[in-house]
């Protein structure tokens, strides 16, 4: 069975924004895959003017928070990298016991979501920019962080729309709604190894060189 894959647009986030961005995206995806009875909760992002929706399930929330903690710890050790988080939905199939094994629970993955984050260090990020832009200091940095923030906000929106589009377009692969207690299809969140540091740095530089427009242009 081929799993559907949705690769979400990469977001360039500062360290302090990781939690919020991941919450927003992970909850949004799970909300669309929590087909049990839910009472949705609209959540306002703290740093962004975005309202996303949670399915209002404590278990889900806990699991997401744990994974975010894990991710943040990891990025603290390895800053300035691209990282990927994969949210996968699966079905549980009880494999018939064979002569060499007992009952085995098998996970049949039917959907993978890849969340791509590029965790930046705003300060060093600013420096690299300023190396090119030479002179401007304080005010320029502030301006840049504002524009970067605005760009990120609009990128998050794009990602949310991307999720909406995907869930609307791909519906056939959804397994039947599980009868069990959980409100969502079973899922797992895995933090994938980020791209190699030197490589990441190179692509970063390359990207910057190619990136002629100001980040705000995106919005």
């Amino acid at each position: 069975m081929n799993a559907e894959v949705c690769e979400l647009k990469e977001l360039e986030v500062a360290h302090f924004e990781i939690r919020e961005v991941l919450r927003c995206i992970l909850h949004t995806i799970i909300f669309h895959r929590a087909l049990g009875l839910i009472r949705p909760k609209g959540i306002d992002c703290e740093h962004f003017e975005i309202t996303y929706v949670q399915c209002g399930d404590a278990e889900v929330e806990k699991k997401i928070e744990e994974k975010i903690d894990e991710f943040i710890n990891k990025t603290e050790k390895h800053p300035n990298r691209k990282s990927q988080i994969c949210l996968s939905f699966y079905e549980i199939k009880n494999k018939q016991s064979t002569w060499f094994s007992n009952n085995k629970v098998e996970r049949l993955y039917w959907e993978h979501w890849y969340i791509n984050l590029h965790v930046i260090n705003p300060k060093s990020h600013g420096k690299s920019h300023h190396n090119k832009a030479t002179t401007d200091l304080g005010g320029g940095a502030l301006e840049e962080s504002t524009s970067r923030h605005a760009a990120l906000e609009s990128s998050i929106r794009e990602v949310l729309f991307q999720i909406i589009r995907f869930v609307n377009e791909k519906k056939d692969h959804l397994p039947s709604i599980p009868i069990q207690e959980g409100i969502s299809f079973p899922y797992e969140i895995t933090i994938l190894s980020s791209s190699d540091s030197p490589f990441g740095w190179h692509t970063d530089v390359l990207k910057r060189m190619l990136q002629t427009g100001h980040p705000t242009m995106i919005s």
Partner: protein
Amino acid sequence: MASSPRNSYSEPPIIEQVITEFFAKSLHIILESRSPYVSSRNYSLDHFASSPSSSCSSSSSRPRDKWFNLALRGCPAALENFDLWRQSNLEPLVVDVLLVRRSSTMDVTRLSPGGCLLRNPSGKDRFPMSPRQDELGTRSEKIIERWIVQYESRKNSSCGKEMYLGSRKSSSVSSHSSEIPTLYKKTYKRTIVMLRSLYLFVRLLPAYKLFRELNSSGRIHPLSLSHRINFFIDPFTRVEDAEMNQFSFVPIDTPCGRLCLCVSYLPTLEDVSSEPSTPLSTQFIMDYVGSPTTDPFKRFQSLSSAGLARRHSWSNDHGGMPSGSPSPSPTYSDSQAMHYNPNVRLPPRHQHDQPPSAISIPHNASGARKKNTSFEDYLSSPFLPTSSPSTPIHFHGGRLPNSLLRFGSAPVSIPSSRHGRNSGLLDQAQPPSSSKPTRPGYSSQTDLCRAQNTSASQTSSPEGKLRTKKDPLSSGDFQTGISLAKAFSFGKDEVGTLPGLKCSSTCIPFSRSSSRLSLLDGFDDSEFDYPFADDEDTTESCNRLELSEGKDQVGLNLETRGLVPVPRSPDAVIGALVRMLNTAPPLQQDLSNSVRSSQVFRDKAWIPRIQHKEDMEAEVEKSESPVSSSGITATGLPKPRTTADALAELRSYKETKELLLKQGGSQSSDDDCKDKSADGDSSQC
């Protein structure tokens, strides 16, 4: 059959029901986040916690929650409109979200749903939420979003599921029953996903931000959101079309057609915050209760003294409590203080009182409500994805649900009367000539009230009572349940005869009111039952309310005292007194001096020491109401007191009261009498 002009009949009944419910849910989701006052974010926790403990009271709201496994806040606006739609044979449902701009926030002249102009001397009444398209000089409206929910029927010949049709013709039950569940589940599952994405989508559009800002800020904006529902697609002008973005959800195929949902929206909206607005200033409150924003005790004080005036605020906040969204409104902060202050248990009582008041404003709601309930009753056994599809539900029936009775008990008139009272107080606090800033939420309620009242072509008399009584739709309908049907049939007829009818003018008031009802409905907690139960016997007279509350809780007397009928409006009296207190500098000095004598006693008796002035205020209130001599003080903190304490207090109060009266002169002459009686009462204890 397939050839029936009603394309609804070409679908298997169970799928037809899914389609119908899809319309309902879509409408609900959209209006919930566009129609003021029903923002779900403010709702979540309470409702969620209470709903699992399903009591009979919640039964009417819950079945619909189960549809598509998406439990939403009650949004009667949606249900009402949907009920109208339901008679339209799966016509497209077009929801226009309108941005309404008023040219002035003061002394607004507005168009009532009935088309007559209402002059609004108090400024509290708002324009109807479902305005007509006509434009007056005072307002203009613009479509910022258009949602189209549509069922597109395939030609019968091409109806994809021949197997289904064939089985139907040949009455081959076995194949029929085996096919339908599969189709049903498939359609249902897809619809669930689509509705979830709709739920998110409505929150990502710019109008949602506007909605939130308008709903949460303590300011009166010249802008407001409204909506209009049509059952046909009224094409945009080229200009409108050009500036709109489109988004279409991927249609869901059903056996004989498909479900479509699309939206056109303006990608950018005006920034509300840049608009001139009338602040709901703290002054407004300060006029009668001091500054509620700083000192927690003061806040509390202000609550108790201004309890009546705050009712509407509370009802507004009722929905907003859990989230505690930031609001500059002083009333809001007060209510928050109440929540967080464990000592403050009296106000919550008020809160419970609130819902009925909020609900009852739109009287038409009774009719609407009945309809809703009956409809929901039909749905009492909603299909779960796993449930057997073998029991198709027929929507068209005349069964009168038990729940009607329950709703029938909801007091219609109370809110109106309160409204009237409040206006009295507010009028006291502020000169009538000045604009009456009210919070958006509040205004929306009043709007309804107004809208409904306007149906009777009532003038904008500030006396809600009078209006309610005159309102043919509202009065007495609840008890009988018959007039309700009438009101509804009225709506039906309109729809029937005028297919293109813009139902907004008729249905919105309904919906709004019913939204409050259903919201409450969601709270199956007994605590929320209280208001209803109480209100059951309540008619429009405030006296009755007072009695019933008094029965239940003596401690409430302080708050409810305002309801005791007195020759002069108690609120007005309080307002006058408080104003006097605030504006008489020498009085404050004297006051503190005079009170000092009894300081020792009071320090013992009143553990949380409050400023003298506040005590005085509290006392003033107390003296007005003989009943209030129960252990509850103005601060709401019951304290053990000895007779000596009481006497000492009494003495000091007398002194201060006399000073006060001297200062106030003739203004408070009638308070004097009450005062004495109050003194007499307390001296006997």
